[in-house]
């Protein structure tokens, strides 16, 4: 090798090594930073989790939660084991509330509308500007003496925030404060009001009952207070006592139905008649405990007449009646299969009568009425309906509308023409922290905190036949530039000034809440027991998650006057049977509820318990029906009612009547974040606009549909491979009789 070459190699080697060295240096990740606290927060140790007690607000049940917080971030929401409602459990929806907090699609700042209404195009503004704009609008309204044209529409809020909102509206001079939710169960409350005198849902003591007759109450997944009932269900099945039995009456097998020992697929709309026929049979067989007032009414519902109407054999009705009356204690619950029809009140009353006849009211293991335990004066205003709002808007009686929490654009049928009505409202403000279908109509958005950032309280309704008051406390500092809902009202009141500011004087909502609890504390003697004054009580309540007292037994009798609400006929369905051969059952799906869960990725990916479908809508059709229509699983079909058309893939579901199809509610959002937007279809769209004139509850099961081929859309995505066990003994069972002979395990 020549010297020159050698030098060249040395040179190249040097350059290469240098380049490698430099690249190594450059490509090295920059040293991680170690950021200390400026001022150490009290009682926080980095690396050690702190648990805060709060309340889940994703549905109205009011489950107590414990939130695990590390380094100022909420990690997990769990059920509070001490809380009397949920006793440690928490449903899928509730546990996902942490994804609502950290949702990437949250509204991060106040927004002002840029594009046309409904488009969802907004520009960011400051809080100052937002509050001023809204206040200016309200002041103008007031100055024109049009205070009554201000409306506030919220989700069914409870507790102190409800009081504050009410105070705000009334101080402003308006009487238009209404609650709206798809599943308010107002029919049930109305029925209870007219039968037992309290407009609330009683405590169903599932835990101790031995025979549970549920009329379509899907209490395992979404109905009223699912965690509370599920906890009771677990104890009913394998508790200390004898194993209770569950019978489910419903046209479409729900998750609860799937767990039932018996499924009675009565014809849709006739379940109330079935309840009355059972009650009548009990009376006729002389098994009734308290039938004096009802003998006459019931005699019209003979089992043999009702059998063909309900499509349930007469022997079966009689057997059910005998077992219901003889098993002690027994309990009938009026779920969606009686209360979601247009004569829902009638159905709920029928079930109350059945309970009364069998002597189940006011007994352990039966219906335990809830009183206004803590004297916070909560009542349901049946007069405030969504139809009131729509007709007011159409009659130009709404100038300013503030919406919070409710999403009526998504949950009312297209036939209600709500969007059209909203377009007539000159100014709409929304306090929502998510862009949903209703918020997309707002002119201005003032995003409120999610419940994990906010203060609040909750008085669970239905309760557990015991006084319960729980506190919602902020567990993390706000993630975005949002404000506490209460603070928005308070600051708005200050900005509006006048007597509104004079009425609402609290500096902030936290103080307002504390003051409200001071009142509660002074009104309720039991709360003071074992505490050293209010501060001590308050701190203890914050630690425990609230305050709850011992159970109070209340009883009631079903007043005979309630009979006037009994319609005595099957519920009506829109659409001719010849043209629209199938009953449509839209139902609340475990994860999405009324659609509110659809923006949470965990819930989108959660397989539906009954079909294992994820990320979409489907239509459940009986395999035999599908075969007669020539449909296979996964085929896209149109579901047409007289009011519209949606499309969804077919899921072959053996647990549904051949004359019925079912579609889950919750998908089909046009706004509501990246996870929900443009996914699936919303069955509510094609429902008739039917609202109970008395209670204001929407009738969900109220139309017939036809199924036609030829739709296009998203494919069916399901997690299951096969639903058959092939005799592999995967889920093993013992028969009830065998179980009775078994030695009980002692725990």
């Amino acid at each position, binding site marked *: 090798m020549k010297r020159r070459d050698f030098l060249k190699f040395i040179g190249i080697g040097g350059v290469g090594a240098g380049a490698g060295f430099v690249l190594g240096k450059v490509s090295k990740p920059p040293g991680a930073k170690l950021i200390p*606290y400026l001022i150490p927060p009290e009682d926080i140790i980095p690396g050690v989790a702190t648990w805060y007690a709060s309340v889940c607000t994703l549905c109205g049940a009011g489950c107590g939660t414990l939130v695990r917080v590390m380094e100022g971030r909420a990690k997990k929401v769990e059920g509070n084991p001490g809380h009397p409602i949920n006793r440690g459990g928490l449903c899928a929806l509730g546990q996902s509330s942490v994804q609502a907090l950290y949702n990437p699609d949250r509204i991060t700042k106040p927004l002002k509308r840029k594009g046309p209404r409904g488009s969802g195009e907004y520009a960011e503004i400051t809080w100052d500007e937002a509050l001023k704009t809204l206040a200016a609008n309200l002041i103008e309204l007031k100055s024109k003496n049009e205070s009554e044209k201000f409306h506030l529409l919220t989700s069914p809020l409870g507790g102190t925030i409800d009081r504050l909102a009410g105070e705000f509206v009334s101080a402003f001079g308006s009487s238009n404060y209404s609650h709206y939710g798809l599943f308010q169960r107002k029919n049930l409350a109305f029925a209870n009001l007219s039968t037992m005198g309290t407009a609330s849902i009683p405590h169903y003591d599932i835990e101790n009952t031995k025979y549970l007759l549920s009329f379509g109450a899907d209490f395992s997944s979404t109905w009223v207070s699912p965690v509370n009932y599920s906890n009771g269900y677990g104890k009913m099945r394998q508790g200390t006592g004898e194993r209770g039995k569950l019978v489910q009456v419903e046209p479409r097998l729900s998750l609860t139905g799937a767990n039932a020992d018996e499924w009675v697929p009565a014809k849709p709309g006739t379940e109330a008649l079935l309840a009355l026929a059972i009650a009548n049979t009990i009376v006729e067989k002389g098994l009734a405990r308290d039938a004096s007032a009802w003998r006459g009414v019931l005699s019209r519902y003979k089992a043999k007449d009702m059998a063909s109407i309900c499509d349930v054999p007469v022997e079966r009705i009689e057997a059910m009646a005998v077992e219901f009356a003889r098993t002690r204690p027994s309990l009938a619950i009026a779920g969606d299969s009686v209360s979601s029809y247009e004569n829902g009140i009638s159905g709920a009353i029928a079930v109350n009568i059945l309970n009364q006849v069998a002597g189940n009211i006011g007994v352990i293991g039966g219906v335990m009425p809830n009183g206004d335990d803590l004297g916070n004066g909560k009542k349901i205003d049946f007069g405030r309906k969504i139809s009131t709002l729509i007709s007011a808007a159409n009659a130009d009686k709404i100038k300013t509308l503030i919406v919070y929490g409710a999403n009526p654009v998504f949950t009312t049928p297209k036939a209600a023409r709500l969007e059209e009505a909203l377009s007539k409202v000159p100014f709409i403000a929304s306090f929502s922290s998510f862009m949903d279908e209703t918020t997309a109509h707002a002119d201005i958005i003032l995003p409120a905190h999610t419940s994990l950032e906010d203060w609040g309280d909750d008085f669970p309704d239905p309760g557990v036949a015991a006084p319960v008051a729980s506190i919602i406390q902020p567990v993390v500092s706000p993630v975005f530039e949002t404000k506490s809902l209460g603070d928005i009202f308070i600051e708005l009141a200050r900005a509006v000034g006048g007597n509104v500011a004079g009425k609402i004087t609290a500096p902030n909502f936290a103080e307002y809440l504390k003051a409200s609890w001071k009142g509660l504390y002074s009104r309720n003697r039991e709360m003071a027991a074992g505490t050293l004054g209010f501060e001590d009580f308050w701190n203890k309540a914050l630690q425990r998650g609230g305050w709850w007292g011992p159970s109070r037994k209340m009883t009631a009798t079903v007043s005979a006057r309630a009979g006037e609400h009994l319609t005595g006929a099957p519920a009506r369905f829109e659409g001719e049977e010849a043209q629209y051969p199938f009953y449509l059952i839209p139902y609340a799906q475990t994860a999405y509820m009324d659609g509110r869960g659809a923006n949470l990725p965990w819930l989108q990916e959660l397989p539906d318990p009954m079909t294992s479908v994820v990320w979409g809508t489907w239509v459940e059709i009986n395999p035999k029906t599908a075969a007669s229509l020539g449909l296979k699983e996964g085929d896209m079909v149109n579901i047409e009612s007289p009011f519209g058309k949606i499309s969804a893939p077919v899921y072959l579901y053996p647990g549904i009547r051949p004359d019925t199809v079912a579609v889950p509610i919750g998908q089909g959002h046009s706004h509501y974040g990246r996870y929900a937007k443009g996914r699936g279809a919303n069955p509510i769209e094609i429902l008739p606009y039917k609202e109970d004139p008395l209670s204001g509850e929407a009738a969900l099961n109220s139309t017939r549909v036809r199924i036609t081929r030829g739709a296009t859309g998203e494919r069916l995505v399901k997690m299951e491979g096969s639903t058959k066990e092939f005799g592999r003994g995967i889920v093993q069972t013992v028969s009830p009789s065998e179980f009775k002979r078994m030695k009980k395990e002692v725990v």
Partner: protein
Amino acid sequence: MKKLILYAVVGGIAFVIGYFVNDQFFSDRAPVQPINFSHKIHAGDNQIPCQYCHIYAERSRVSGVPNVKRCMGCHQIIKTDSPEIQKVASYWDKKEPIPWVKVYNLPDHVYFPHKRHVRAGVDCKNCHGDVASMARIEKVSSLQMGWCLSCHTKREVKNGHDCWTCHK
């Protein structure tokens, strides 16, 4: 042509060697910190115990970097004229935390509780070296798995070789 290939090969090999040398022997063991903090003055000359500042070491997984308030607790009075202390004060005035550079960095899949080690009587020196003599903190342990295991073996830690004792 042939030569070019040869050059490329030599250059490539040299490149790899250079990279490796940098990676193995020139890792930043004592990075420059935003404030020229001396453990020698604090822990050495003034004999301040470790846990006076690293307050969580006995209670938590992490030992904890002293918060700025704690720094200012002393330095509002002591040595306020030093330019380094003035830097601390300016962070405090701006209400900004001090962005220290991490020296001992463990990957995400390792669960290392300071608490268990401190309570088991492992001296801070075992892993962090003689901090009291360091003007600028320097990484003295490799933090490699073998290094952990050698100590676990020596001290006969119960289940000290089970993967799930340290890996998460």
